[in-house]
């Protein structure tokens, strides 16, 4: 499923943002529809099992070559510390070399307000989320795609990719 970016005119008219609500295990998240270039079945992506250089990058499960770009597929369950994720879908992220494995899409929704993450949240989660949205009296965290892989993470992963590729094997990128 290809997603078209929202036009500036549409944005100005509505003063709102389209978001994809998705699940990882029991947890509902939101991500800007503009940030997602493509949604694919995890079974349909061919890539390699990632050989991660550091334990904190074990969230990177697969490496996929898309044209000239190397895209790193991140397990959303590991990223957010949620056990028993099913990882059936992959969000290929626009303008980023990261993709996110999620369990399921819940629905699309439009939001006019993004609430700040309260300041008492003071650790890594400040990089994970752009903020919070309220939908049907529920609070849903809005994932910041830029927080999935830092520049340092990418440099490490790239360096590892360019190292001699011993024992790499092509696999179906399902979780």
């Amino acid at each position, binding site marked *: 499923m290809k997603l078209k970016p929202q036009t500036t005119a549409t*944005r100005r008219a509505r*003063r*709102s*943002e389209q978001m994809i609500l998705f699940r990882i295990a029991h*947890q509902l*998240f939101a991500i800007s529809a503009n940030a997602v270039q493509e949604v694919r079945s995890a079974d349909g992506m061919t890539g390699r099992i990632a050989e991660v250089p550091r334990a904190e990058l074990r969230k990177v499960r697969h490496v996929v070559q898309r044209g000239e770009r190397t895209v790193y597929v991140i397990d959303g369950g590991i990223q*957010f*510390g*949620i056990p028993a994720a099913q990882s059936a879908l992959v969000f290929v992220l626009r303008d980023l070399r990261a993709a996110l494995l999620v369990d399921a899409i819940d629905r699309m929704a439009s*939001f*006019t*307000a*993004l*609430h*700040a*993450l*309260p*300041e*008492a*949240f*003071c*650790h*890594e*989660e*400040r*990089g*994970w*989320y*752009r*903020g*919070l*949205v*309220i939908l049907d*009296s*529920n*609070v*849903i*965290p809005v994932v*910041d795609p*830029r*927080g999935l892989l830092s520049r340092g993470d990418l440099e490490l992963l790239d360096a590892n990719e360019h190292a001699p590729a011993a024992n790499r094997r092509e696999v179906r990128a399902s979780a």
Partner: protein
Amino acid sequence: MTERSELDAQSYVLLRLEDRQFALPAKRIAELVPLSRVFRFPHCSPEVEGVLIRRGRILAVCDISPRLAARPLKNRRLYLLAVRDFAARPESVAVPVTGECELISAEMTPATGGQPPHVRGWISHDGNVIEVLDLDNLIPGPTAAPNAVQAGVPQEALP
């Protein structure tokens, strides 16, 4: 109480956490509100339980009992909405309490060196010496937040 000591006295809210009593400066208390649903999502700040919605705003819920009384508060009945000064701006935080809250006027003796940073001083009430808490050193705050929306009220969704 002399005229001078009346001027020096400030209002404090007494709260009970397990078997201990603590005080917070009343000027740092915005409201005492009934319990409401706490929304939880993945995060790495163990002092924060989740968030609640109050008048369209999203507030963090922080149980200070584990730090002060060594275990989570059992019989919570209300939230004390207390104002904590973060680097960016003051922000209300919901602190679960038992409901045994009392407003008193007292003179505080400031804490001297060697006390935990969250102890601002002491007041005397009904023959007891009660710690006055410093929320800014009790409730955690962030370092720089590169990707997050600036704290505060809802913003337009799009930059």
